């Protein structure tokens, strides 16, 4: 199995989604904010979750394990949703068929939600039909999924609460969606202290959301300490990027 054009590659360095544009090689082509950049495919992209277009989730492993075998001699070209053309030639299964099957079994794929949402297509160049409202892709693309913290702090900044306000609005729109809040710390602290600190950060987000009326039963909190950096690096930029709490749709 290969990456199919139209598949949404979610969580690129944790920051945005990408839809496979073309699968023919070993570079990663990213089109974002009207700029196309090409990166060499890195093995640490392996963990990215991958979602098939219009469909619910696909565990990244299925696809990326196959990647492992082909990575050395293939070049993959990916482009974001802003891409205009979806080249379907490399795909062995028809996305249309998959769409039908999976939507039928997906509890989140109510037509009513599709008609009520206006969060998709905020950018005119985005090809809106591929994103299911209330889905993780929808959330990731249309709502900022994370807030940042200062060193050894867990209080929410004004910018953070602004982000959380948009998350709360989204969560109120899709009242059946459950979420996981993951708290994280940079590596400038010891493991156990950072576990406690990251739990505090996630709980700051949890408390804020519950304060705005989100049912606490919809929220799971996980403390990751310094185990899952969003940015690999030993500099202020990476540390700031890693001191965060990330909201994800609970796919379980």
């Amino acid at each position: 199995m290969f990456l199919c054009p139209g598949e949404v590659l979610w969580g690129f360095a944790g920051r945005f989604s990408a839809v496979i544009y073309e699968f023919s090689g070993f570079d990663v082509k990213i089109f974002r904010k009207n700029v196309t950049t090409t990166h060499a495919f890195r093995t640490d992209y392996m963990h990215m979750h991958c979602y098939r277009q219009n469909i619910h989730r696909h565990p990244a492993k299925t696809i990326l394990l196959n990647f492992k075998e082909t990575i050395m001699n293939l070049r993959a070209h990916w482009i974001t949703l802003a891409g205009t053309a979806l080249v379907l030639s490399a795909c062995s299964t028809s996305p249309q068929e998959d769409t039908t099957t999976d939507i039928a079994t997906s509890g989140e794929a109510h037509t009513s939600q599709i008609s009520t949402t206006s969060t998709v297509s905020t950018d005119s160049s985005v090809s809106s039909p591929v994103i299911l409202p209330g889905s993780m892709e929808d959330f990731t693309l249309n709502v900022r999924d994370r807030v940042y913290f200062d060193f050894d702090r867990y209080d929410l900044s004004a910018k953070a609460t602004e982000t959380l306000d948009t998350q709360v609005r989204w969560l109120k729109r899709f009242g059946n969606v459950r979420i996981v809040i993951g708290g994280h710390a940079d590596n400038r602290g010891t493991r156990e202290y950072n576990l406690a600190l990251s739990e505090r950060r996630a709980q700051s987000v949890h408390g804020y959301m519950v304060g705005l009326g989100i049912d606490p039963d919809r929220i799971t909190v996980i403390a990751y300490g310094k185990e899952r950096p969003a940015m690999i690096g030993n500099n202020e930029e990476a540390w700031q990027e890693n001191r965060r709490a990330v909201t994800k749709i609970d796919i379980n």
Partner: protein
Amino acid sequence: MFAPILLAVSLFTRSLILVFGLMFGPQLAQAQLRVDITQGHSKPLPIAVLDFASDQTSVTEQNLSRSIAGVIRNNLANTRLFTLTPTETMIKSFLALDRVPNFENWRIIGAQAMVHGRVEQRADGSISVGFRLWDSFREIQMHASEYSANTSAWRRIAHIISDAIYSRLTGEGAYFDSSIVYVAESGPADMRIKRLAIMDQDGANHRFFTDGSATVLTPRFSPTKREITYLSYSSGVPHVYLYDIGTGRREILGNYEGITFAPRFSPDGNSLIFSQSVHGNSEIFIVNLHNRQRRRLTNNNAIDTSPSFSPDGSRVAFNSDRGGKPHLYVMNADGRNPARISFGKGAYTTPVWSPRGDLIAFTKQRGGKFYIGVMRPDGSQERLLSQSYLEEGPTWSPNGRVLMFFREFRDGSGAKLYSVDLTGFNLREVPTPGDASDPAWSPLKPLK
């Protein structure tokens, strides 16, 4: 000339090792050969460790001899308290166990201490290993023992002999016959695969306990059983688990709200002390492992974590930011009388009480650097032993003379284990098959 006296000392382990002491006259003199290990830079003691079999014996015995003497030499050399006399400079590389050395020959090549031994394979497949330690200047025997075991236990015998030599010459407790449990790391930095692994103190007998499907952290040995406690994300949320090394049985500590982490056994092995964080407030709890009754020891809005019992079980050192920054505190084992003990600049975390009770090791973070240090339990006499870009998590050798910890590197290369003497000398990397973090030193293996 001399009459060997056979002393039955004890019967040991499930592998049925018999321990005998062999005594030669003349007896010990008052002024003893001694390595002063309180001075890390003191001159290493030259010692000759001969082979344990002559070239007249069987190939099996010669191989065992090479292996056993090799482990002993390696153990002693790694301490840097000893320099091993090269075998090429020795007039003879084997001396029968019932012979008294010609001390003059050993003095000439500067070997102040000299070890010779014998390995014998018996008809039933077991082996018998005896050795003698001599002071070649005073011409006295300092120690002699003989051990029997299954052939497969040869490595343990080598460690036990190393311990006997080390203890006799330094006056310190033994530590070579011990294990390290640690977290073996692989994979990309933002998705590390972390597996529990165990190995002998010198890196031998390496094996994995978990398959890497769930991230595991911070393992610790039980002081009394072949059991480990650690943190695992196997349920998705971090919780404390117990692992029985013998049976491979895994068990979650309890069905607790929030997250549980930072587990350690009590010195009697009957309880576990750990942190539980619920709604952003982590507290320290103690749970009785027999009836699973749980008691809270801290009650504070701050982060309270990384608890560590004093060896007598009367007090608990822990980490808290109740004063604004992470610092070290000590409280009674029932949670009363918490008092801050660290007052230096920077952040102090991961207090670990020495098995001798006299010191608390810690991680310190200041000015972009991490340090491993020790202080008295009252916070006095802080000494920093090691520093680097990122290092943390000290664990004590069973005799309280060596600290192991792990380092990460600014260039992003993987974590590695390091050890350093309490003196701050002999900093060295502990070899592991791959990247490694969160080491925990076992107690000495039991001699039953």
